[in-house]
C-alpha cells in the first residue's frame, strides 16, 4: 500500500516523530513547534508537509497562522506503521532463535 509506505517514511525520521508527538498533545502552529524543537521554522514546515502528505496531520487557517493537528484517521496510519514494524521485529526475533538452535 502506497499510503502505508508514506506513513513509514514520514515516521522514520526522528524530528518528524517529535513533531507528530507534539501534535498528539494538541493542535499547534509552525512557530510554536519550531520553538520547542532544535530545528528551524522552514525545516518544521517541510516536515509538516511530509506528515500531511502521509495523511497523518491536517491543517487549517486561523487568521494569519496555520494550525496543524493530528488527522482524525491518522491513528489508522500509526497502526499500519506498527503492524509492519512488528512483522519486521518478530521476523528478527524468530531468526535469532533459529540461529541459536543451529
Amino acid at each position: 500500500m502506497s499510503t502505508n509506505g508514506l506513513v513509514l517514511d514520514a515516521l522514520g525520521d526522528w524530528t518528524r516523530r517529535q513533531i507528530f508527538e507534539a501534535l498528539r498533545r494538541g493542535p499547534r502552529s509552525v512557530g510554536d513547534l519550531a520553538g520547542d524543537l532544535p530545528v528551524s521554522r522552514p525545516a518544521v514546515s517541510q516536515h509538516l508537509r511530509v506528515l500531511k502528505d502521509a495523511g497523518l496531520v491536517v491543517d487549517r487557517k486561523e487568521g494569519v497562522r496555520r494550525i496543524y493537528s493530528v488527522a482524525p484517521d491518522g491513528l489508522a496510519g500509526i497502526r499500519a506503521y506498527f503492524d509492519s514494524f512488528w512483522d519486521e521485529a518478530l521476523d528478527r526475533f524468530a531468526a535469532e532463535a533459529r540461529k541459536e538452535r543451529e
Partner: protein
Amino acid sequence: MVEAIRKTVLVDFTPEEAFELFTARITSWWPVRTHSYGGDEVKNVVLEPHVGGRLYEVTAGGEQDWGSVLAWEPPRRLLLDWQIGEACGTEVEVTFEPEGPGARVVLEHRGFGASDPRERYSSGWDVVLATYAESSSKNA
C-alpha cells in the same frame, strides 16, 4: 477505536527460552537501526525484569525510555506500557505458550485510541463490551 495489532510467531525454543530471548536479550534482535531514537548509536536495549521496570535504549549520550513493565510473569506473559512517540500510551502484551516441541509467541499491540485519557477509557469500554458481545453471541 483502532483495532489492535496481533502477531503470532512459532519458535523452536521452550517458552522459558523464548521469554528470555525476548526480554533479557532484546538487543540481539530488536531492529534498532530503523526503530529507535539513536539508530546506529544505540549500544544496548534494556528491559528491567520486574513490574515497574523500564524499557530503554542506551547510547553514548545516555538513556532514552521506550516504556515500562506493567506485568512480569515469566515465562508466560509480559505487558508493556509503550511510551515511544507516535504510539505513546499504547500497550504491548506478549504471551509465550508451549506448541509441540517449541513455543508460540503471540504479540498484541493495542490502545491506538486518542491520547486523551478519557477517550482511552471509553475506547477501553468499547473493547470490553465488544468482546462481551462476541463471546455471548458465540454462546448463543
